């Protein structure tokens, strides 16, 4: 899961390392650190926003380790829907119930259709749709795409996915 945390550090040297070390000890992957030394809290501590990817199971352990070393954990939040993909669908999109197609993605709990544009040239002609799907992570995004592929197949829709960019083998 991807977690964003606000930590409060004492204004003495060596505190940032103290805050980051437990994350890497627990095999977390730090994605961003925002450290604003000049913006102190009313308590005189320095707030730091950290975003990282980590196993959900070790999250409590991490918070404990941070608190033990004197780092205050002010806020913990899960970052949702970090990954995004665009697809185009062609076929009888409306007649094959686009609402149902979107529901199939949204009901997964880990992915949502966040954008939809439709183009319908004439009643008897096939229509085209552009969809953006967001998901909590790359793995979930792949699952959502598989689901949509399956739906498109059943509803006889042509689904155009993006090229695989830097992961040809995956």
């Amino acid at each position, binding site marked *: 899961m991807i977690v964003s945390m606000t930590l409060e550090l004492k204004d003495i040297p060596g505190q940032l390392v103290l805050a980051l070390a437990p994350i890497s000890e627990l095999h977390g992957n730090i994605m961003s650190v925002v450290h604003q030394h000049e913006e102190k809290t009313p308590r005189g501590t320095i707030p730091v926003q950290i975003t990282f990817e980590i196993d959900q199971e070790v999250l409590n352990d991490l918070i404990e380790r941070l608190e033990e070393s004197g780092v205050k954990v002010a806020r913990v939040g899960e970052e949702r829907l970090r990954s995004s993909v665009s697809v185009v669908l*062609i076929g009888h999109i409306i007649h094959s119930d686009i609402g149902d197609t979107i529901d199939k993605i949204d009901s997964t709990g880990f992915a949502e259709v966040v954008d939809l544009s439709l183009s319908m040239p004439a009643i008897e002609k096939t229509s085209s749709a552009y969809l953006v799907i967001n998901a909590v992570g790359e793995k979930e995004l792949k699952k959502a795409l598989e689901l949509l592929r399956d739906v498109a197949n059943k509803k006889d829709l042509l689904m155009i996915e993006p090229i695989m960019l830097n992961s040809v083998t995956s």
Partner: protein
Amino acid sequence: MKTISLSIIGFGAVGQGVASSILTKQNYLKEQGFNLRVVAISDSKGSEVNPEGIDIERALKRKNQEGTIAKSNQKALDIIREVEHEIVVEATPTNIKDGEPGISNMLGAFNSGRHVVTSNKGPLVLRFLELKEAAEDNGVMFRYEATVGGAVPIFNLIHEALSGNTVIGIEGILNGTTNYILTRMAEERMPYEIVMKEAQELGIAETDPSYDVEGIDSACKLVIIANSIFGQNATYRDVNVTGITKITPEALELASKNNYVVKLVCEAGKGHLTVAPRLVPKRHPLSVGGTLNVASILTDLAGRITISGKGAGSVETASSILSDILYIIKNS
């Protein structure tokens, strides 16, 4: 000066392109120390054989005027077996049903101890491994740069310039006809049927375009790539193929508004071969227009390498064939 004799089997657009390139590049080649002597040319109606070297200019003229090269009715396979020469340029048309007459010509050449340079996909799609082994068993070379990507040197790039790299995957646009159709549909907002008609009038698409637009041609090229680069023994049936016939101008417009173009993309990774329309970001190197071909190769050391160029045309294809001929001369 190294004098090399060769035969041109199949004298359509590609065969004539090879002949005229050898003719126009004669002085250039001699400066490099190579004398290419064409000792036999054969088409579907007959052949011309001259161990001293055929007058290429006259041969091209005769083909143009009479529709055939035929001076005698000596058969291609007999020429391959009996006329003394080093390299067979196999340029008969692609036949993906049984690979003939390409397969017999190639096997005949190998068994007679002659190298083969070809533009003919059929045999490589159907019996790649067998042909490769026949060449190896006879101690001769088998070169097929012209089968994929026309003038674009995909195999040379990977096997020579990138040797030492492990290829992780390849993505490419390997069919100029579909690329032209999708590019025109997107640019002019015209439906598939009208653009297809235009492409047929321009000679870019065949009268029966199904081989191109249903992705069969692309799939065949992907099979050759998989076999040559990943050492597989893949055939057409191993490729997951979707063509472009269902694509609407509206779909292309929606994609374009979101900074994508739609291309018929071939993808090869270990154990996965797909031809399908894909969304390509407009500024991605794969986003090439018109009839251009492009291949993007992902490797472990060099990272991503992308090359593009003309994927068809008689002289363009001859460029790849000539390059293979010279490779053989330099390395044999």
